């Protein structure tokens, strides 16, 4: 049995961008350890502190990264992100955010693939292995450009190397119940006021996730599975609406797949998970039997 075979991962590395997102890991780590026995699950902490930001020129490096992140902001939902000179205030905000994981503000839409490519360049060589799954949790809202509709769509996740999962995206990306939009339109743009929004949420209690929702960590579990399946098989999604891998476009679908489903994975994906477990056990046994040292 070779480690290079299909269906092999050795390590799942988890990072967060905002300190409060680390709470997600309290549920997620035992969940992943249980589902992927034999695979190491590492909590690597604040992404920007784990990844070296240059030596001796930290301030300049922080500003360079901040400028690149500012450049990934979506300026116009109807236009793909193009080169745009960031304002000094934007760069200053991003620089502060890189260095202070307590900053937890949300609402800006970033181009998900550009943001992912910025993250990618900070992985050290020893982490550039397909046997390692890197998942970064963020509060940034990420979007991808839809060529057919010629507009941006908010996304929960951007899968690849690394995979980026947005907790704001869990709230904002899957569409809320239709009544939400009708009611909000009736109240008008001023619905952004606290009392108006509270009434709206009260009327539709539980039907969609909200910022700070206690259900977010549980919902985030399934998206970690999707990231891992993407790396294992190239396909993160499942057509079964009750499977954790279901690609939810509506909050109702997200809640059904992630919070209310009678099972975790559909039989097909559960089989893949079991197969992976068996292969991992075999690889571990082989490793245990390997002679120590360089041999005779």
């Amino acid at each position, binding site marked *: 049995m070779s480690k290079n075979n299909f269906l092999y991962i050795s390590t799942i590395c988890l990072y967060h961008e905002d300190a409060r997102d680390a709470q997600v890991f309290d549920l997620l780590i035992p969940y992943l350890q249980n589902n992927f026995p034999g695979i190491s699950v590492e909590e690597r902490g604040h992404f920007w502190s784990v990844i070296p930001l240059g030596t001796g020129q930290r301030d300049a490096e922080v500003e360079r990264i901040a400028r690149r992140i500012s450049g990934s902001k979506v300026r116009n939902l109807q236009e793909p992100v193009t080169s745009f000179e960031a304002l000094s*205030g934007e760069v200053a905000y991003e620089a502060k955010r890189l260095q202070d994981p307590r900053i937890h503000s949300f609402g800006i839409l970033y181009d998900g693939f550009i943001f992912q490519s910025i993250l990618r360049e900070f992985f050290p060589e020893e982490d550039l292995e397909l046997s390692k799954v890197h998942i970064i949790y963020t509060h940034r809202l990420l979007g991808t450009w839809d060529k057919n509709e010629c507009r941006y769509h908010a996304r929960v996740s951007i899968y690849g190397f690394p995979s980026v999962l947005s907790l704001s995206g869990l709230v904002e990306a899957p569409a809320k119940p239709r009544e939400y939009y009708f009611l909000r339109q009736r109240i008008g743009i001023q619905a*952004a006021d606290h009392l108006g929004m509270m009434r709206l949420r009260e009327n539709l209690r539980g039907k969609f996730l909200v910022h700070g929702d206690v259900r977010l960590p549980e919902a985030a579990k399934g998206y970690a599975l999707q990231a891992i399946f993407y790396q294992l098989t190239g396909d993160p999604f499942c057509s079964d609406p009750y499977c954790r891998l279901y690609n939810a476009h509506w909050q109702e679908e997200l809640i059904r797949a992630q919070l209310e489903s009678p099972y975790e994975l559909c039989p097909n994906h559960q089989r893949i998970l079991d197969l992976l477990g068996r292969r991992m056990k075999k690889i571990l046994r082989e490793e245990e039997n390997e002679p120590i040292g360089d041999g005779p």
Partner: protein
Amino acid sequence: MEKIFSPIGEKDVTRAIVAEFSRQFQEYVESDVIIIGAGPSGLMAGKELSRQGYKVLIVEQNNYLGGGFWIGGYLMNKVTVRAPAQKFLDELAIPYTEYIPGLYVADGPHACSKLIAAACDAGVKVVNMTKLDDLVLREGNRVAGVVVNWTPITALPREITCVDPIALVSKMVIDSTGHDACLVKKLEERGLIRTKGFGAMWVESSEDLVVEHTGEVHPGLVVIGMAVTTTYGLPRMGPTFGAMLLSGKKGAQIVHEKLASSGH
């Protein structure tokens, strides 16, 4: 029968108005800080800076001050703030109730009038019915004042009025003109800056974003309040007064640091 009021003639009343307006106006042709827009963030910034001893002039295009702080959403005159912004209500002695933990509700007229009074008590001077026409730029395109005109003049066709505006100068200028971001737009007209417009409107936005982005956007110009959202392309927000008050306070702090570092 004895008269209640002293026997002052119309001409004395007119002289009093003209003389006092002229005296104050002449004094404030040059000030430390000019704030354009007398909404909650502008009033808060003005109050804070005046308390620190700066000479502050607020320019307001309407007759009334307070901007949208008189009413909350949907024309209902209750204003809400989220913790920790209730401490500003405490500071201004504005009565409020805790609607749910962390959310506080006050009467709009009471809150707004108290804020206006606090700014005036601190020493802020106001020219109302006065509209921004342009910016005064100095070496290196540093913002060093504003060009203004009477609001009614700007409302009339130029061929009828033909009234030139006048300039007021200051060490720093604050843009608190709300979603219009009038001063930032003037910089944009000159090609000195490119604003971002509004972010995604369906998205719920963190109030922190406005406060976090409050700051000097161009040498000499600090942007606060809702003008921040237009400048940086943040999601358009409703009446989030906590962020407005906090942004005003942060803007004042930034202006103070800039002036202090330059020896003022």
